[in-house]
């Protein structure tokens, strides 16, 4: 087995998926995931996350482009890929009348080199619920059962479609710890989420999907860095934006004025903030409601959603 760190465990090129009705859910996306990486697909509902993951899982053939998982086509070379992958679908998929243990036993019989069932249930803290019917589980417990089954075969590659949706804060944290522990043992994880803090906290790299395209991709820091930081303040009576030093010289890339409130966008936060504050100090001006905010993933995410819903639909590719 190739254990090269730079080996691409997942490779996606020009991927497209068109549904029967003609709806194009995935419109040509490219990304790759290296061995041992945690990669997050981030996006609003309908961005194409699940449509993409299902192609990676080999549940459907792409309408265009190419998918490779562990060097194979996950759909055509199913028998080669499946023993090495673990999958957690967005929704359950268990007979409601079976107990937790019976469900896990069924699944274990279908998995090569399965962990013992009690161990798998223990990983997600469901061992005490082994005798309970699936229909009596809470939504969060069902998510955890799904995760336990995805981990039964000790997979090299793990696909998690919205793994923490429906979990409470504690359950979410436990899942995050589990994903980190798996990454530390070399498991490659691809997860989808619409929680920004989940992507920011877990992912080594991420791609923000919007309307079936990759709107931004890179490490959380890279995606964030591509977004401008913001400075806003309120000018006192008698002062105008024109009284400030030339904005371009301060590294400000854009500004807007609404009444007395001034908002500046900059990629050089320190320089711009210093310029504004030094000017205020010298002019004896008190800047009220001063707010200096570095770029965040949330800004990037909201910016992408805003941009695409407006007239400007130009594709922004950060990496």
């Amino acid at each position: 087995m190739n254990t090269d760190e730079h080996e691409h465990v997942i490779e996606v090129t020009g991927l497209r998926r068109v549904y029967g009705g003609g709806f194009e859910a995935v419109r040509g996306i490219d990304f790759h995931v290296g061995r041992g990486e945690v990669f997050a697909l981030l996006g609003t509902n309908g961005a194409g996350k699940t449509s993409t993951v299902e192609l990676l899982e080999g549940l459907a053939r792409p309408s265009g482009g190419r998918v490779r998982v562990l060097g194979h086509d996950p759909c055509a070379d199913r028998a080669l890929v499946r023993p090495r992958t673990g999958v957690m679908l967005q929704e359950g998929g268990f007979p409601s009348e079976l107990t937790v243990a019976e469900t896990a036993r069924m699944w274990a019989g279908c998995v090569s080199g399965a962990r013992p069932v009690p161990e798998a249930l223990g990983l997600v803290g469901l061992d005490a619920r082994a005798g309970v019917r699936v229909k009596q589980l809470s939504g969060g417990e069902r998510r955890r059962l799904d995760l336990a089954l995805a981990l039964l075969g000790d997979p090299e590659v793990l696909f998690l479609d919205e793994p923490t949706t429906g979990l409470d804060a504690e359950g979410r944290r436990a899942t995050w710890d589990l994903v980190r522990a798996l990454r530390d043992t070399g498991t490659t994880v691809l997860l989808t989420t619409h929680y920004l803090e989940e992507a920011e906290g877990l992912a080594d790299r991420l791609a923000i999907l919007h309307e079936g395209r990759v709107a931004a991709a890179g490490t959380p820091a890279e995606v964030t860095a591509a977004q401008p930081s913001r400075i806003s303040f309120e000018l006192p009576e008698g002062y105008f934006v024109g009284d400030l030093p030339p904005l371009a010289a301060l590294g400000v890339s854009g500004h807007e004025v609404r009444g007395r409130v001034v908002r500046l966008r900059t990629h050089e936060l320190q320089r711009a903030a210093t310029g504004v504050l030094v000017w205020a100090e010298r002019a004896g001006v008190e800047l009220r409601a001063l707010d200096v905010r570095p770029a965040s993933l949330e800004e990037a995410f909201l910016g992408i959603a805003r941009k695409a819903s407006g007239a400007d639909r130009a594709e922004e590719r950060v990496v």
Partner: protein
Amino acid sequence: MSTGVGTRGGADVPGVRGGAGVGRGPVATPARRMAALARAELTLLGRSRSTLLSAVLVPLTLPVALRSAVSQMDLDEAGLDVGLVMLPASIGFSLLFGVYSALVGIYAARREELVLKRLRTGEPRDAEILAGAALPVVVTGLVQSLVLVAACTVVLDIPPPGAPHLAVLGLLLGLVLCAALGAVTATVTRTVESAQVTTLPLVLLSMTLSGVTVPLELLPDRLASVCALLPLSPVITLVRGGWTGDLSAYEALGAVATALAWTVLAVFAVRRWFRWEPRR
């Protein structure tokens, strides 16, 4: 099994990697996978009162209801007697209600619960998933048929079969064919409830025109030769022929070929059109 995780800044979650295959299960072979699926499905069968009722009780009680109707039939002319109508009819009921109809409901339920989709993300192949789910009702249908054959033989004083191999062949073909037809019908069945409707055409057609209740021998020749081509007709013909022992080799081969043709057609249809997840 509490080998810890080599955490590099990650949280400490014990047992994430068991390490070196200690205590790991065997490689999943097709037989092992189907056995695991069949076992789960058998457990579910035992917990589904409605499926049990229609799959077990109906085939066991219908023959009793049919008996008085059969005794009114003019069977002597066709060289048959009550026993030779009742026995294939009982097997027909088992196949139609115990296997076919039950399986359509099972496939629809597993699809609705997204179980089929979930299973397709794993190692089992498509055919294994469908076969694993079918196994319990196929075995139930087989046992039921044998019980009914024994009961009919005792109660109706039927002589031993003249050509038992034909009867066995007919029963086995019938089980496979009904499982395959169940999967075909499931492709056009959206929900468990609609399975009660989508299974009706084949059930009614088979009961009336495939010789299950009314022997083909009693129909006009022209109609009978067309009806002989219906899916369940060759099964009933082989079973009845197995007991009378007067089926020619030509007739037997024709029946086997018809049954196989339907099976091949059904398998093709399933591969082409089976839906693994609900429509959205």
